């Protein structure tokens, strides 16, 4: 009885896993489904057209073989068949190329769309920001404590939207390759010092202490200081933001052979092992981070990676969940 019970269930599991594999293969073969994903009709979809071309090549080879065998004495007919088949292949290839062009165009339009929408959002957002500030300043009417609480919520959320729009604009510029590096000489230690100073209020409000260990003696870097500021700011913001309760952020700067090494260590929530491979992807936000902190667009580290790699540097991190993270980058002194 017992054996009887186990045996069929074992079979069932096996059957199930086989079914899963079969489904996986089917889904890969499901060209109609893949084309739907792109929002393209079949005759414009590269995957489908490739299949058509493959079948056509096999069939036409067989036809040529048959024709060649039969009309071996009549080379004109063989040549004409070959020309006809080559012309058909050429037409299919042209259609495929066009469909790829259309996909590339759709991608470009997407980036442009993001750019236009973000630009359009900026005006109402700055209006909103200044009107809220005007109300909060007490210039209109004395503000009660209760009202002030709500004004603060308005201001904070407007700020979040402004940041998100700014990030989206940078991402669309990166994707449209319209985010060129503007190189100039500057001292990295000064830049970091200035950014830390700018974050002092935010850190104090979050009960976080920032320690700057500077082992670099005023090395001049030749790079884009505006873009590097975005990266440093992103590291600092993340470090402060993801510390629960009281904590310390250690910022280190040192000179290596041909580069400057910068790192930010925090005692924050850390990144779970399974999420680590996705951390530099666009819009990715770790599940544990979402529990602690709803703010953040998931774009900062993607932007940081693009900037550092374009500058000829390297970027990376070490992290352990519930212990903290260390994000670092290197930047060549003369790039």
């Amino acid at each position: 009885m017992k054996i009887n019970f186990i045996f069929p269930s074992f079979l069932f599991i096996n059957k199930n896993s086989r079914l899963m594999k079969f489904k996986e293969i089917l889904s890969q073969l499901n060209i109609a489904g893949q084309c739907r994903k792109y929002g393209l009709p079949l005759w414009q979809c590269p995957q489908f057209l490739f299949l058509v071309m493959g079948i056509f090549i096999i069939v036409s080879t067989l036809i040529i073989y048959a024709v060649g065998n039969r009309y071996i004495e009549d080379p004109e007919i063989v040549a004409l068949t070959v020309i006809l088949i080559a012309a058909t292949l050429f037409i299919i290839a042209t259609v495929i190329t066009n469909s790829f062009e259309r996909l590339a165009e759709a991608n470009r339009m997407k980036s442009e769309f993001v750019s236009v929408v973000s630009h359009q959002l900026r005006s109402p957002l700055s209006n909103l920001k200044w009107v809220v500030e005007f109300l909060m300043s007490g210039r209109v009417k004395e503000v009660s404590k209760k009202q002030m609480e709500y004004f603060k919520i308005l201001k904070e959320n407007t700020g979040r939207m402004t940041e998100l729009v700014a990030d989206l604009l940078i991402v669309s510029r990166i994707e449209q390759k319209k985010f060129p590096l503007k190189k100039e000489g500057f001292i990295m230690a000064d830049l970091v010092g200035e950014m830390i100073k700018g974050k002092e209020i935010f850190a104090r409000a979050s009960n976080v202490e920032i320690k700057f260990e500077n082992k670099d003696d005023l090395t001049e870097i030749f790079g884009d200081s505006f873009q590097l500021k975005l990266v440093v700011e992103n590291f600092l913001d993340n470090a402060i933001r993801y510390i629960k309760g009281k904590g310390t952020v250690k910022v280190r700067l040192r000179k290596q052979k041909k580069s400057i090494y910068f790192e930010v260590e925090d005692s924050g929530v850390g990144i779970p092992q399974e999420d680590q491979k996705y951390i530099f992807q666009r819009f990715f936000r770790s599940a544990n981070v979402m529990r602690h902190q709803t703010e953040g667009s998931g774009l900062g580290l993607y932007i940081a990676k693009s900037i550092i790699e374009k500058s000829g540097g390297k970027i990376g991190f070490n992290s352990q969940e519930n212990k903290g993270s260390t994000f670092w980058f290197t930047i060549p002194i003369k790039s």
Partner: protein
Amino acid sequence: MPIWLINADTIMKTILFIEDESALQKTFGEVLKQEGYEMISALDGEIGLRLAEAKKPDLILLDLILPKIHGFDVLKKLKQAEGTKHISVIVLTNLEGMRDVDMALELGATTYLVKAQYSLEEVVEKIKKAIGD
């Protein structure tokens, strides 16, 4: 009161605000009034140029994306005309490309402010500084 009895310091300084967002016109109008300035509004580039010529303000706040005449062209014309070329112009815009900043400064703008980066009070401070108060 005869004109010679008016102390020069008591004459309100005027600021021309060329900006198509009426929400900003309203907010700045109120703030600048409280700061003791008279504000003149222009909702597009064409009116802006006409008012600059007619009223000769002490300072011009100029947006760049404007109906009818673009901010850069307004700036160029202001700096070319005899009557308006000495007036300080603060560009107040959402455009933040380096090319836009360079262009505006090249054309003769005193300061270039990106709206998203400044608070209301900071903008007021910049205005006071540019107008010499």
